[in-house]
């Protein structure tokens, strides 16, 4: 139920994002989802890729500081109110979202959204109780 995400530290310098994508391209790694959070000085690039271990190895070899974190991927109805319904469930159950971003690909008719929450296991339970589909690593790989 936990999705592996790579977080990469980037200084706010010209060309650094391009460097990351080049390293991943050379390692034949495909990016499935990404988000960039930044301050005036630095940014954190978060990636979901098709081969996390290979990507991590290639990034470290290229002297990037990178680490793997666990996040939750949830299916969201691709229609007005789809995301609102899920966020309402989070709110009602006092689950705090650290950050979220959307997946590039669609799974049949639904969108996929990535959430970072502190209490991962409880969040997954709440999702299940509310009939919200949580996506596994296997499903993501086969998209």
């Amino acid at each position, binding site marked *: 139920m936990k999705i592996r995400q790579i977080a990469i530290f980037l200084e706010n310098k010209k060309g650094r994002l391009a460097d990351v994508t080049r390293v991943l391209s050379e390692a034949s790694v495909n990016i499935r989802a990404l988000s960039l959070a930044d301050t005036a*000085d630095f940014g*954190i690039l978060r990636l979901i890729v098709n081969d996390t271990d290979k990507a991590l190895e290639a990034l470290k070899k290229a*002297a990037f*500081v990178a680490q793997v974190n666990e996040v939750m991927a949830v299916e969201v109805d691709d229609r007005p109110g789809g995301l609102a319904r899920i966020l309402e469930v989070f709110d009602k159950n006092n689950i705090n979202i650290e950050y979220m971003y959307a997946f590039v690909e669609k799974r049949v008719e639904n969108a996929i959204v990535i959430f970072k929450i502190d209490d991962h296991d409880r969040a997954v339970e709440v999702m299940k109780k509310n009939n919200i589909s949580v996506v596994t690593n296997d499903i993501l790989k086969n998209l």
Partner: protein
Amino acid sequence: MWNVKHESMGRKELEHLQYERLSALVNKLYNRVPFYTKRMDEKKVKPGDIKKLSDIAKLPFSTKTDMREVYPYGLLASDPNDIVEIHTSSGTTGKPVVGAYTKNDIDLWSEGMARTLAMGDTTREDTVQNAYGYGLFTGGLGIHYGARKIGANLIPISGGNTQRQVMMMQDFKVTVLCCTPSYAMNIAEVGLESGVDFDSLPLRMGFFGAEPWGEGMRRELEEKLKIKAIDIYGMTEIIGPGVASECMQQNGLHIFEDLFYPEIINPDTGEVLPPGEKGELVITTLTREGTPVLRYRTRDITYLMPEFCSCGRTLVRMHRLMGRTDDMLIIRGVNVFPSQIEEVLLKVEGVQPHYQIIVERQGQLDTIEVQVEMNEKLLSDEIKNLAGTEKQIENAIYSTLNVHSKVKLVEPKSIPRSEGKAKRVIDKRKI
């Protein structure tokens, strides 16, 4: 102990020896070196006025500026034909400082360095990798002469080519590493990155000096390289390394007082301070022939520790350097030493000793930015945690130094690695 007689001499006997040597030195300098004749005349002091050791306080000081002004041979006290070797400081900020060595001076230097290496139990059975730069810089040949005197197996690899350093260290079963602490850190990192298991190597001692380094840096080096790290002290103006060194107690550096007479002075007034009081270290070379110095102001800040040391040496210790009167930064009226910032940084969990201090003046205000390299231990996928790390370091610097700084996390390897002396401060102020 390399020289039991002189390193564990009774204090009375030592002071007698120091006086005899000082008296002879003053006579020689007054009669042979016009620079000192002039300085002593200006202070209205004659060699005959030096009747006891404490009369040294009547003598004039000498400074780095003096030495530059008399470049190249103005301080020569021996027959020029007796000189067998010349060394100079790097001279990056002006004319270099010159050290001229007679055959006896080389023996004296070898003695100081043999004592230093023997502080870490170095014997003829050891293999010494000397990664100090060879050439005019005294670090390389100083270690070289000391290791030769001891009869250890010496690898004169000099600085640079870190991959080869790591290879030689493994292949020749090196037990003792000598270099600047920042270069030792570079060697450790390159070794660890290429998968070297330092635990399995016979490397056991490191003799590090020629730049300021703190206890945090010592812990890092000892943990990474699996060694005991010894702080050594010296400078070209005196003779090079081999003036003072820590013993295995790692609690202050024993000064080889029978050869180099130490005083601590108030840097503003020049007044001699009692043991235990912090001030500027002043050294007189008691036996040097080529370019002896009288009361040389080192600009290094420390204090003397006269207490008995359990290693058995009676030689006084000086505390590890606490800063320099000239690398002191004055930031909005507060005195800041880069070494203090290093100490603060290394107390923060996960911070590695790769940092640079950038001082700028914006309008009338000095600003200080501390760049700290990012690493996996510090990384988080959440901005607030990284911003929190920056804030935590800023607060730690403020609470220790009372100076506001801006901490900036930078990418690994973005701060240049040292192959000799590390450049810690970039002062962009135009004053």
